[in-house]
């Protein structure tokens, strides 16, 4: 038995942690290859057109591109045809009533014939050549915008912007018919990520509406939206969105691998999926970005990340994510880089203040009082003189009360939230000080900590910070700066070993690497953001050429 115990204690246990690291080199594609203009024109054979578009749109994996095939009969001749459109971007009613219905039901053209009497009084029947294309364009399809187009690059652009396109056998032009329309509940303002300067559209619960919102911003056929189902019972639709020829293939494969290998009964929200696919399953810090803003999701897609949409959830998951992403606001990219950097710096300071202020206060007042001026020290001592509780109890009580107010104001109906605020301010603030339960300086500390936490843009990061604040408070009480340093040391170590889809959490600071400036906390002016994030190893590293404002160059 003792032998067994020893064997168990010292036996070799294989490290079973799952690890995925993004490979450092990706199959880069050249700038020319990426931006290559498609000069192909419509083929006369319809099958060729169909195959061309199927390849162009990666229809084997792209889920929202639809092709409706049918036959049209004009003057006893049958013409195979098809209609192509992006589901979610077109109005079904428009297509049914004003495109398909006329084509099928109003197509009763007869042989156009004219009788002409000649001078010798003979009469002859003259048959005019029938032009299908003109007939459809001018007589059959009643839509306000019907454009003839034979260049595929323009056709694809029309499809991407919500047109449906009709191809007919032996006709060298395609008819681009406007049928834009978005379904689902009205797109509303994002609730959790409001900005002053920026778009005011948020994702909704319908996955198709959400994919169409992405397509509306990113007008390229390279945007791939792969759909899969998760959950044996719920069969929840999950869309994996990325840009082909840009996003790292290994990253896409890893994301698909994780999502396709979930054995669950049901999945009802993006929050659930986030927890299922994150690298460090037990880590309290967020490892993917959650957003309800299509502009933010599109921006990240164009930078080479992956966006995952879930049906019935208005939140998209962006991956991979680093600490800098959690301290960024979508507004940063709309503001002048000076303001944006100032705000980012403030948020960075706020992160530390929200995490450490109570701990440092307790450490200074208990062990390191020589750090502060004597006058301030006397004020603190005088304020605490009448308080019967130890400082740890005082601060923990206030922090818990603050958390309770926050939680209550979220849970109660909005009409009560003002009342909750007043109760909190009066009872937990003024009355507690008057009753000598807490010192006035502590109210300042707790309020400052709370406001600092609100300045952190990401909700999940805020939760983690709020939670760890208690740990630092306790460590500060028991061992002053030694305790805080211990906590910080372990915290940094655990976070620096945390990965998000192969990308270290503290990228680009830990591990320190040659980072391009637009992935650090400091952001460059918009005309200098030339590179995509290096850690993503995208296939197209450059966002813009060295000189993007060519108008300046031209002037010179």
């Amino acid at each position: 038995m003792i032998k067994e115990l020893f064997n168990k204690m010292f036996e070799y246990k294989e490290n079973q942690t799952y690890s995925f690291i993004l490979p450092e080199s990706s199959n880069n594609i050249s700038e020319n290859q990426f931006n290559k203009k498609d000069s192909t024109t419509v083929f006369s054979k319809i099958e060729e057109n169909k195959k061309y578009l199927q390849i162009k749109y990666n229809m084997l994996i792209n889920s929202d591109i639809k092709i409706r095939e049918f036959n049209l009969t004009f003057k006893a001749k049958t013409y195979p045809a098809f209609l192509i459109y992006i589901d979610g971007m077109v109005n079904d009613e428009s297509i049914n009533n004003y495109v398909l219905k006329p084509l099928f039901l109003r197509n009763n053209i007869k042989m156009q014939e004219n009788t002409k009497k000649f001078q010798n009084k003979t009469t002859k029947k003259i048959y005019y050549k029938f032009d299908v294309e003109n007939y459809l364009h001018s007589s059959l399809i009643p839509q306000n915008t019907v454009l003839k187009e034979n260049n595929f690059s323009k056709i694809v652009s029309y499809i991407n912007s919500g047109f449906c396109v009709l191809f007919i056998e032996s006709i060298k032009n395609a008819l681009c018919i406007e049928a834009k329309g978005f379904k689902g509940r009205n797109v509303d303002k994002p609730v959790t990520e409001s900005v002053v300067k920026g778009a005011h559209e948020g994702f909704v619960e319908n996955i198709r509406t959400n994919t169409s919102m992405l397509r509306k911003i990113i007008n390229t056929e390279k945007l791939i939206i792969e759909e899969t189902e998760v959950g044996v019972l719920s069969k929840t639709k999950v869309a994996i969105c990325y840009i082909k020829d840009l996003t790292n293939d290994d990253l896409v494969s890893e994301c698909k691998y994780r999502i396709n290998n979930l054995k669950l009964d049901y999945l009802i929200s993006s929050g659930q999926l986030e927890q299922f696919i994150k690298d460090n399953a037990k880590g309290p810090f967020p490892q993917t970005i959650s957003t309800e803003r299509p502009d933010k999701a599109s921006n990240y897609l164009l930078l080479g990340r992956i966006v995952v949409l879930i049906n019935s959830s208005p939140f998209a998951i962006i991956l991979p994510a680093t600490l800098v992403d959690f301290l960024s606001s979508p507004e940063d990219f709309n503001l002048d880089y000076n303001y944006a950097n100032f705000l980012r710096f403030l948020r960075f300071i706020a992160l530390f203040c929200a995490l450490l202020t109570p701990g440092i206060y307790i450490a200074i007042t208990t062990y390191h009082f020589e750090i502060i001026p004597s006058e301030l020290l006397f004020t603190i001592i005088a304020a605490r003189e009448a308080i019967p509780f130890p400082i740890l109890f005082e601060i923990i009580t206030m922090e818990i009360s603050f958390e309770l107010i926050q939680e209550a104001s979220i849970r109660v109906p909005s009409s009560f939230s003002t009342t909750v605020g007043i109760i909190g301010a009066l009872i937990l603030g003024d009355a507690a000080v008057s009753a000598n339960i807490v010192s006035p300086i502590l109210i300042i500390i707790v309020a400052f900590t709370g406001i600092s936490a609100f300045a952190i843009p990401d909700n999940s990061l805020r939760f983690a910070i709020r939670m760890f604040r208690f740990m630092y408070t306790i460590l500060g009480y028991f061992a002053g700066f030694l305790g805080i340093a211990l906590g910080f040391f372990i915290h940094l170590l655990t976070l620096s070993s945390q990965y998000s889809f192969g990308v270290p959490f503290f990228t680009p600071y830990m591990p320190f690497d040659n980072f391009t400036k637009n992935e650090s906390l400091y952001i460059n002016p918009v005309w200098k953001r030339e590179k995509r994030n290096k850690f993503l190893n995208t296939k197209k590293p450059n966002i813009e050429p060295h000189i993007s404002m060519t108008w300046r160059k031209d002037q010179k």
Partner: protein
Amino acid sequence: MENSYKIKNGEAICLIILLMINKLILNVPYYIVELVGNGAIINILIIGIVDFIVLLIIVNLIDKFESMDLLDISGYLGGPILKNIIGFFNIIFFYLVSSITLVDFCNVLHNIYFSDFSIIYIVLFFIIGISIANFIGIESISHHATFIVPLIIVSIFITFFFTLKNLSIENITPIFGKDYYTTFVKGLSNAFSMYIIVYIYYVKPLLKNQEDFKKISIISYIISYILLASTVISMLSLFESNSNNIPINSLFLLSRQIELGDFLKRIDSIFILLWISASFSYLSLIIFAINRTIKKLFNISNEKMITFSSCSTLFGLSLIPLNVSQIQFIENTIYRYIVLAFIFIIGIVLLILANMKRRRLLNEKKI
């Protein structure tokens, strides 16, 4: 993943500097000034040159062995017996260094901030930290070093610039110190202060880009030397040649001399946060080195398994009751000569012999 992690260039430089920083925070600059007095400036110039030459020799000798550290090289030279001897010597050396550093640092903390606490309580904090760090692994320790080292370098320079105003001509003259013999001959033993060379022997197999080993060693040596020179100069600012008395024995206490107006009375209280973090990293790194040596000697598959026993041993060694003068004796005399013997005799002799053996084998192959 953890076992195969290779340290990048920047991380390696930071880790080597980190090893230096801890001794700077504690007593090394004090021992230099104590021995040679005003001649410290000349002395550090000399030892800088001597150590640099030794470093170049060592780096060139190690560079010929691909992905091998001193332990592997001793195995190559003398088989398992020599490897075991060097390995055990290493373990004893690392335990001596870490336990003395730990006790010394805890004593400083105990005397200044936590006089009510038992020293065991302070030591225990460090032991918890380094145990967890070693469980997480070298990858995180090196990441942490890249974060903390630049901040500590800034703190050392702040201390240097703020104490520079106290530096007067009396502090540095006579420039040749007490006498020529002390400055130029006896003072050569101060070469131990660049003790990071000991760790250069072991860093190569851990590197991701082993071809940059030379570059990494030289850069980290130069930065460490600049830090040493600035702390020695800071220390000299308080040195009175008449009394031959240095009132302050560490950079940590030296930083307490800095005054930054009325609001921040003591900037050292902020520095202490950084320096404690540096000590955590330093000790974690030494425990990693011990674990790695044990792993190599006993062919253990996963060195993390012995983390608790290594840390417990360190804890036990740190509890051996020593007073300040005993600690200073160990650091200033025993440690000084062990380092010198290791750098100048054992290491170089082993490397030269191994190179000779390598050359002989190559020649035999050619024939």
